[in-house]
């Protein structure tokens, strides 16, 4: 299939609603879209449902590419709160750093953050894969249920508090682990999974430098003896 003409949208001359409506249009006649001048606006390119490539050329505000399904979104800048929140599939690639709650509650897809992610990265993640090039802030992967969080730098306090079955791989130091989160052995399947995710994000690290963290599964069911751990 021949590539369709790349479409250029400009948030300095169009409203956010016009830009998002164009991206949502059932008859969208482009498979590659560039959005210029986002200027930190919120909710840019949210709710996409088609396998298109969208490049947002600049810094974005809150919830950029939220609820993404099937689209591949690249943000040429930093992202505000909740980038790729509740993503279902596709990918979101942040060239800069991300604010808090990156990839929150996301069910699937790949979120790559080349810089740092702030607090609560991957909070309540439900299946997404997240690769952070730098470090992550406190309370990341809080109540993380499924999916994988890879951190090439350090993690802040209370990593993986009340975690369920998500896998966390951290190369650097962890300021502290949250309740019920523990370091675990790296088996061959973990090295393989980590190497594949690093590769998908454009990295070639030695997976032996990483430590895996996950749930010790002691808080799954309420037991009165654990009351103080919640």
């Amino acid at each position, binding site marked *: 299939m021949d590539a369709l003409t790349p479409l250029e949208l400009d948030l300095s001359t169009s409203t956010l609603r016009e830009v998002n409506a164009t991206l949502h249009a059932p008859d969208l006649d482009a498979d590659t879209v560039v959005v210029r001048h986002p*200027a*930190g606006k*919120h909710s840019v390119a949210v709710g996409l449902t088609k396998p298109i490539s969208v490049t947002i050329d600049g*810094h974005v505000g809150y919830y950029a590419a939220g609820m993404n399904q099937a689209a591949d979104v690249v943000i040429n800048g930093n992202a*505000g*709160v909740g980038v790729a929140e509740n993503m279902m599939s596709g990918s979101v690639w942040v060239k800069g750093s991300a604010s808090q709650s990156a990839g929150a509650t996301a069910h699937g897809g790949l979120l790559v953050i080349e810089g740092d992610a702030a607090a609560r990265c991957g909070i309540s993640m439900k299946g997404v894969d997240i690769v952070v090039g730098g470090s992550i*802030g406190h309370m990341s992967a809080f109540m993380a249920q499924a999916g994988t969080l890879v951190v090439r730098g350090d993690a802040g306090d209370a990593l993986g508090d009340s975690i369920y079955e998500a896998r966390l791989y951290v190369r650097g130091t962890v300021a502290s682990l949250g309740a019920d989160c523990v370091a675990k052995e790296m088996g061959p399947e973990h090295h393989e999974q980590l190497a594949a995710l690093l590769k998908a994000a454009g990295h070639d690290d030695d997976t032996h430098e990483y430590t895996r963290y996950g749930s010790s599964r002691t808080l799954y069911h309420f037991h009165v003896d654990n009351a103080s751990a919640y």
Partner: protein
Amino acid sequence: MCGIVGLHLRTPDLYPRLGELLTGMLCEMQDRGSDSAGVAVYGDPRWSPPGHATVSILDTPLGAAELAVAIGAVLGEPVEVIDADPTFVVNAPVGVEALRSAVASAVPEALVIGFGEDLAVLKGVGHPRDLADRFGLEHAQGWQGVGHTRMATESAVTPAGCHPYATGPDQCMVHNGSFHNYATIRRDLVARGMHFDSENDTEVGARFVAQCLQDGMDIETSLKELCRTFDGFYTLLVSNKDSFAVVRDAIACKPAVIAETGDWVAMASEYRALVGLPGIETARIFEPEPEQVYAWTR
């Protein structure tokens, strides 16, 4: 919510543009709060002429000319009163304390919202864009300014509930968030003889920091003391005659972005408030870490 913005200029080339840049930043944050708004401007030659003390007041039934006569009569010196509706900015070629006490005795019912040698505070109930126009903010000059757009939570929408809170000479605080144990702290401070103008939580924080500074602590130590004493959610921007400081609580759920170039340091609740600053394309942009004090001095 609430929105906060601040701009600390390093190059005098930009001083004439302070008001224009601050207006853009403040108005971009108006959808984080439009119950009230306010700014503090350091070094505007009209509001705070060199060699003069400046006192900013709100909530007075008198007009500018009547205020000038009433305050001038007490002071025995010529007094200039600028109508920056709804605020009045009073200045006179005397010491700050002399002007403050003259204002207090001439118009005891007025709310003093700021005082110092270089600081003018303008605030009021209303929409940020409308207030910025009424203040004439766009034409302001100076080396430093902060602003606040309020979505009221802890106290009523009244003139006394507006930010900034300027409770010490040339000092000012703006706050996004809510303090939770402020009533307890206020009770202690009242017992030590401190007076409060409002029921607002931020006023307690501002008076606490002013007390720390008066006790001889530097701004960094004062803000660490605030973190140790206050419980709640906060991103704070605290400015002084010669400094500009940012701190967030340990949970850090209230947003903050700092951008820095060789020409200026700026802080805002959201990045979009910073996009109009000259050189933002190449600025170093970062989010302040929880409970870490970031301070810049002139």
